[in-house]
């Protein structure tokens, strides 16, 4: 079973703020999801190649030919705040 700390850590990584009720609710829900995977783990997959994709397709490639970008106005149209052609966000520290 997931601990309360596990749920809070997942929420932190997803930048979500949870109420105590939500922590409990998600702890149960996420726990059930993990149980499903536990079930899958019962299968013996030692002879099965790990799969990275569901399709039997590889090498979907594109020629290096420029195509028009969207106008600046369109690029910015969903932005809650903008300035001088930039998206504007609350200040962040250097990564």
């Amino acid at each position, binding site marked *: 079973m997931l601990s309360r700390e596990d749920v809070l*850590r997942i929420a*932190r*990584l997803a*930048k979500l703020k949870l109420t105590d009720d939500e922590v409990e609710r998600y702890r149960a829900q996420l726990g059930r999801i993990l149980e499903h995977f536990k079930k899958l783990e019962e299968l013996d997959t030692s002879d099965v190649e790990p799969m*990275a*994709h*569901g*399709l039997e*397709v*590889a*090498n*979907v*490639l*594109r*020629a*290096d*030919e*420029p*195509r*028009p*970008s*969207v*106008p*600046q106005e369109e*690029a*910015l149209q969903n932005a809650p*705040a903008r*300035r*001088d*052609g*930039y*998206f*504007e*966000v*609350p*200040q*962040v*520290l*250097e*990564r």
Partner: protein
Amino acid sequence: MRETLKMETVIGLEIHVQLATRTKLFCGCSADYFGAPPNTHCCPVCLGMPGALPVLNERAVELALKAALALDCEIPERSVFARKQYFYPDLPKGYQISQYEAPLARDGHLDLELPDGTTTKRVRIRRLHLEEDAGRLVHDPPTGRTLVDLNRCGVPLIEIVTEPDLRSPEEAALFVKQLRRLLRYADVSRCDMERGELRVDANISIAVDGRPGTKTEIKNMNSFQAIEKALKVEETRQRMALERGGTVQPQTFGWNPEAGRVEPQRAKEEAEDYRYFPDPDLVPLLIDEAWTRRLRAELPERPRERRRRLQEGYGLPAYDARLLTEERAIADYFERAVALFPKPKEVSNWLLTEVFRLLDEAKLAPEDLAGRLPPERLVEVLRLVDEGRINRNTGKAVLEEAFRTGREPEAIVEERKLGRIADEARLAELAERVIQEHPQAARDFKAGNERVLGFLVGQLMARTQGRADPKLAAKVLRDKLAAS
């Protein structure tokens, strides 16, 4: 008293290089974003719009493979793109498409040429993978806001990770220089560090008596000098801490070039957790033997091989061969010129002094030289000098004018009447005048003072604007003085 500890510096590098493609890694937006107005090289894919699907740029794959081949990497048959999740405004999708478990290439090496000019040291490459660049952030502390430009977002990068095989800051800078040269030779990237086309992060630790030390990471080193300086500062800091019996804490620093300091970056509350997983939007990449064989055939001669060939094949001094092969464009230019004018040392002398000076003054990249001054033009100047039609100094002036105006050297000589005065009668007239104007010097010479001849030759050269052959000028003056 503690006994002296045996300390050894251990450095590994992580280098990001922008590939010289026309478009971004997963969309058709132009990758030539430098200096463009913000957010004008964007589309639903690189803006991270829901439902937009990435399609891989074939050229980016080929350039990354070329880099891998140039570094003697192993190239697995199959590689996979993965999502690296993190939240930051320079990354609108909330994840970066990168490679994790199945990188494009691994286990390569670069044989570092050490400053002694003869020995090499093998630096192992752990892995090389493809990934997309992030956007650019402009911080504006007065308003407490950050501005985001996503033009760079999605530009193709390769990340090259070395094993911790470097043993000093100097060696680390040397490695980056030689890696850059190799990638420029292969046309993988221009690697312009000022434009951020090559960016270096390092981890550094001090092994004490053979025991590995704690690593710190240094970011934001964007010049060779910065790499060397930043690592020296951190090396000294760690050594002093250990000598005093202290410890080194794992930490990430940013290099501040203005202050000449490494500055701690915000400590992370918890270890990075990128939750990599294969990107379901992208199918695996399969690379077969035929593909790598074709790309290998396209790779140019390596800098080291080229240097040896120039030195041995053209009988050049090691010094010349080294300078001529720092840039492939210069080595190419040299060989084109020598094919037209087979005096290699003469061509090398002019290239390394006059042409390098002109390039430097014009702030021109080596690859733009042939466009500005085709090798045929340089050779024309060399011929004019070689045939005695102009002297060396005039040759330099003609070369400079040809470089600046793009005109034919021959035409410049004609128009400005720069050709040598080889006409003895004309020189004799001028010599007569010089002697009349300097009677004292003429008397001194006749009285046996040979040294004043130099002065009179100088006067005669000045009258011809340097177009006389100094030997002929001296002969004509002697004849005149003897006769008067």
